[in-house]
């Protein structure tokens, strides 16, 4: 075989030598690929066919043969796994050696089962008495759920296809050309020279055709192997095959970045508002009450009626401070939501709203607290909208949980024409929902009715758990 590092000779002959060397090298690679691509599937195919043939042959006189066939069939998936993994390992070695492309081995490491105090083995899912069994269960589960395993299986098929399309035809050209030329040479040698002039001419022609076909094979092999390398790289390297995945993730990251910015921004604004309200409201009032109490102390003996008057004032101030705190708390997290959850909180909203509001709730348990709060404030906003913008008489709110989605529909019989562009707070609702990957859809033809549907992916927690450790 010609080594690939042929010193470049000058001129036409040198170029020809290089070309032939590259062709021969590529042909050798074609041969290796062809062997590799046929060996694995061949073994698996005969394994399956043999087991099935024995089993489908009907009851065998010798039970042991049937048993062996059955075991063989049962073990076939394991065979597929090993063959495909070995096949990929060989391909990765070649990718490095032939193309200088390093494709990492990314198979998951199989976790080790842990033993509990009773001596049972825990796999992370369930307990087993035998360490062996636990290990096998872990192995099978890890391997079956490892995307790399399935990539290997796909490559076993893909490699076969690549060999059939690229490597084997190139190889066939070379072999066919070589055989054609060799046969003519043998003819000449065995006949000790030319037998007939006309035949001689024909033989020479055939010999030349053989050489041309050999040349064709040498010419075709390198581009075919380049294509094969491209194919292999794409199939085996998730970083290349994951281009689509990458695009999806990029989009997802962009989405998360915007929604996070929105969430953080609105959180910060909320906190500023709360700080302002506390500072200018309850805090200031408490200061005033303290001052009044000081004055009362001073007046207690000298002017009891005035002290009594001031006491009444102080009590009034404390009541007002409480009222302000209560409103503030309702804005942060409505107490009824903390105490009862979304369904009843929305019912309470409906009772306080100006229009007749019918609430239907179908929630088996409570959603997570942040989702609950977001949903509550969105419904609150929508009810306010229905009153303010569409002058509705009747509103229907439907809350239900299906297939991991919290779906809330708010319908009103107002005059419709709602649109996010019209500054009705719908944009804010969308942003609020966006933080949780929720979405809002709107149908509001002029003349009504308006139907707004909000969907939020969420997980339901166990019912009646505390979501607030604060006393409100």
């Amino acid at each position, binding site marked *: 075989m010609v080594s690939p590092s042929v010193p470049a000779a000058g001129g036409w002959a040198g170029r020809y030598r290089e070309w032939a060397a590259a062709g021969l090298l590529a042909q050798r690679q074609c041969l290796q690929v062809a062997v590799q691509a046929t060996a694995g599937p061949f073994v698996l195919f005969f394994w399956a066919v043999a087991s099935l043939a024995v089993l489908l042959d009907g009851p065998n006189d010798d039970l042991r043969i049937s048993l062996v066939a059955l075991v063989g069939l049962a073990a076939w998936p394991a065979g597929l796994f090993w063959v495909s993994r070995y096949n990929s390992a060989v391909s990765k070695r070649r990718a490095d050696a032939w193309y200088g492309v390093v494709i990492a081995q990314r198979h998951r490491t199989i976790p080790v089962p842990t033993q509990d105090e009773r001596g049972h083995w825990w796999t992370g899912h369930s307990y087993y008495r035998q360490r062996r069994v636990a290990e096998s269960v872990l192995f099978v589960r890890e391997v079956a759920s490892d995307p790399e395993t399935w990539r290997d299986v796909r490559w076993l098929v893909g490699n076969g296809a690549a060999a059939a399309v690229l490597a084997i035809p190139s190889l066939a050209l070379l072999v066919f050309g070589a055989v054609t030329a060799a046969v003519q040479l043998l003819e000449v040698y065995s006949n000790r020279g030319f037998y007939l002039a006309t035949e001689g001419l024909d033989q020479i022609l055939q010999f030349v055709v053989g050489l041309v076909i050999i040349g064709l094979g040498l010419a075709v092999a390198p581009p075919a192997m380049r294509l094969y390398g491209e194919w292999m790289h794409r199939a085996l390297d998730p970083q290349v095959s994951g281009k689509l995945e990458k695009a999806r993730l990029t989009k997802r990251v962009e989405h998360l970045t915007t929604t996070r910015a929105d969430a953080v921004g609105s959180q910060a604004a909320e906190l500023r508002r709360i700080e302002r309200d506390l500072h200018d409201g309850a805090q200031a009032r408490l200061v005033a009450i303290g001052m009044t109490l000081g004055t009362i102390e001073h007046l207690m003996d000298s002017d009891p009626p005035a002290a009594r008057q001031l006491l009444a004032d102080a009590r009034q101030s404390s009541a007002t401070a409480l009222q302000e705190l209560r409103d503030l708390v309702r804005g942060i997290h409505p107490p009824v939501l903390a105490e009862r959850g979304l369904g009843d909180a929305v019912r309470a909203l409906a009772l306080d709203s100006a229009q007749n509001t019918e609430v239907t709730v179908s929630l088996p348990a409570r959603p997570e607290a942040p989702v609950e709060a977001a949903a509550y404030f969105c419904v609150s906003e929508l009810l306010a909208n229905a009153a303010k913008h569409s002058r509705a008489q009747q509103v229907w709110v439907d809350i239900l949980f299906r297939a991991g989605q919290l779906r809330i529909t708010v319908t009103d019989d107002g005059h419709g024409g709602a649109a996010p562009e019209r500054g009705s707070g719908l944009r804010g609702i969308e942003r609020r929902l966006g933080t949780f990957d929720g979405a809002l859809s709107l149908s509001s033809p002029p003349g009504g009715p308006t139907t707004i549907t909000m969907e939020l992916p969420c997980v339901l927690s166990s019912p009646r758990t*505390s979501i607030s450790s604060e006393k409100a």
Partner: protein
Amino acid sequence: MRVVLAEDLYLLREGLIRLLEAHGFTIAAAVETGPELLEALLEHRPDVAVVDVRLPPTLTDEGLQAALAARRQIPALPVLVLSQHVQQLYARELLADGTGGVGYLLKDRVFNAEQFIDAVRRVAAGGTAMDPDVIAKLLESRARSQPLQCLSPREREVLGLMAEGCSNSAISARLTISDGAVAKHIANIFTKLELAPAEDANRRVLAVLAHLNGTPA
């Protein structure tokens, strides 16, 4: 009068105990959690229970639930519920069985000792004590309904006070009008709302509340 008290904040609990004892009540039990409250109510069968809505362990509406559960087992057990916020929803649940003997007040009403003690006594006597905030909201949400619109402003004031659970004399004191005038207003209100007149003051209040709640009395 024997009282069972449920409040998880130490300061408030002590304050309430002192206030109630100063006005001649006996504290049968003072508890901190929902399950303890239900137990105490069933064991002591007090003349009146004073209950905070939000109690441990869950810090949800445990107090309210315990009170409602106790009333299911001991019908018309007088319960006065205190909360940092008042909800029509909770008021409706307390009034739902229509037997009276319920109160629902903001915690700050305790500041005004006379009014608070009056409310406790009223509930213990089988009357009602509804927070003005609840009644205001009720009236607000019913304001557009036909019957309420034909009431005069004065009649509406009387209706509000009556719904809170005030007696005729209390209403006359609050509005500084004569007892006779109050009785006349109430008769008019009952005519305009098409309610059957009831002799018993408590039944009368419940009828009004039921009407406002939009639930059949």
